[in-house]
């Protein structure tokens, strides 16, 4: 019984302390009126095309992630890459004895999940490609996309992705390619400034004070003007590729090991 009382009393005391701190510092007060200075700078400069720090994008969150703090996001992508590569290393040549073997589910589940997988893929690609215009981006689109291979692995058995051509090597190759492309896109301004006599910075997107280098923010196509927000569109695309293939690979490994096959 002593354990039961402790499981109620300790969390309650802990949360009362946290709430006191939150209310005292004003972090969680209901009638907060003013934004912090940092938020005002982001909201005022990122969207407005007349500002020197603009990203010519209507989405503040994506612009801050890739333009204002691109370094940080690049290394977060690398952390993700390292985590998946190291979990593959850990799982190499592992199999669980007595795991449930792969079986296809009934025709009802298979038919319904084909539709659902299709919808999930379309929605995730749309979220990734509109990342600089509407809420979303590469991270979010990729995380949504991972549900599709997970559903397929559970419904059609663990070998379905390999039968469709998504082998370990291809997925790992796409994953590495996406991370390298993100870094190369960050290097483009530096290479440009070495070739010409123009000032440019690592992971630069559009014109900045003191630099004339800029990726094209709007391009002309036969369908009309398309807003790309410089490099944001491409970085979202590559990040989508990196996150979706990386997690698909990890899920494939986990499912296989769990079902008793050596990887």
């Amino acid at each position, binding site marked *: 019984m002593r354990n039961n009382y402790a499981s109620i009393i300790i969390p309650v005391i802990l949360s009362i302390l946290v709430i006191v701190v939150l209310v005292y510092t004003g972090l*969680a007060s209901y009638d907060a*009126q003013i934004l912090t200075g940092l938020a005002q700078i982001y909201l005022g400069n990122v969207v407005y095309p007349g500002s020197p720090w603009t990203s010519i994008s209507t989405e*503040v969150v994506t612009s801050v992630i890739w333009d204002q703090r691109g370094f940080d996001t690049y290394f977060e992508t690398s*952390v993700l890459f390292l985590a998946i590569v190291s979990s593959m290393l*850990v799982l190499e040549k592992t199999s669980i004895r007595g795991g449930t073997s792969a079986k296809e589910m009934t025709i009802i589940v298979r038919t319904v999940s084909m539709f659902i997988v299709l919808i999930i893929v379309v929605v995730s690609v749309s979220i990734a490609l509109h990342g600089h215009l509407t809420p979303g981006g590469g991270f979010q689109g990729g995380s949504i996309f991972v549900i599709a291979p997970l559903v397929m692995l559970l419904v059609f058995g663990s070998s379905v992705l390999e039968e469709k051509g998504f082998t370990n090597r291809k997925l790992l190759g796409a994953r590495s390619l996406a991370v390298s492309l993100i870094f190369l896109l960050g290097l483009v301004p530096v290479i440009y400034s070495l070739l010409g006599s123009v000032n440019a910075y690592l992971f630069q997107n559009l014109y900045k004070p003191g630099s004339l280098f800029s990726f094209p923010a709007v391009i002309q196509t036969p369908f009309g003007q398309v807003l790309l927000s410089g490099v944001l569109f491409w970085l979202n695309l590559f990040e989508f590729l990196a996150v979706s293939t990386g997690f698909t690979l990890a899920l494939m490994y986990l499912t296989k090991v769990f079902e008793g096959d050596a990887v």
Partner: protein
Amino acid sequence: MSLETYIWYYMVAVIVLTISYSLYGIVTRSHIVKKMIFITILSDAVYVLLVFMGYRINASMPPVYPGGTLLNPNLPGSPGDIESFISRSVDPVPQVLIVTAIVIGLAQLIFLSSISLKIAKAAGTLNIKRLEVEENE
């Protein structure tokens, strides 16, 4: 205090209680999978609390300038548009923090689960107390 204020502080209390209960669970549960479940609950509750911190009483929209499409982008034309956008939008900084934190949390979860699969294969159990007993013997 109005009804909205009561509901607000009730929500904050529920989130903070979830955070503290999951912290308690991480410390006291002895099964590794249960610890992983509590870690997931903890991180999700922290994300929700951070979104709560970005809210303002007069905000009515996310930090996205409205009405843009890929072929017809609607960018603000004058400083007045930007003034009204700033006055109506919520704080973008916590959201920026959360977006990458969610993906890193997923990667951490996958790494934890592969390590625990390896432990289950090697020791036959995921209960930390039993693992310690086997070490001592």
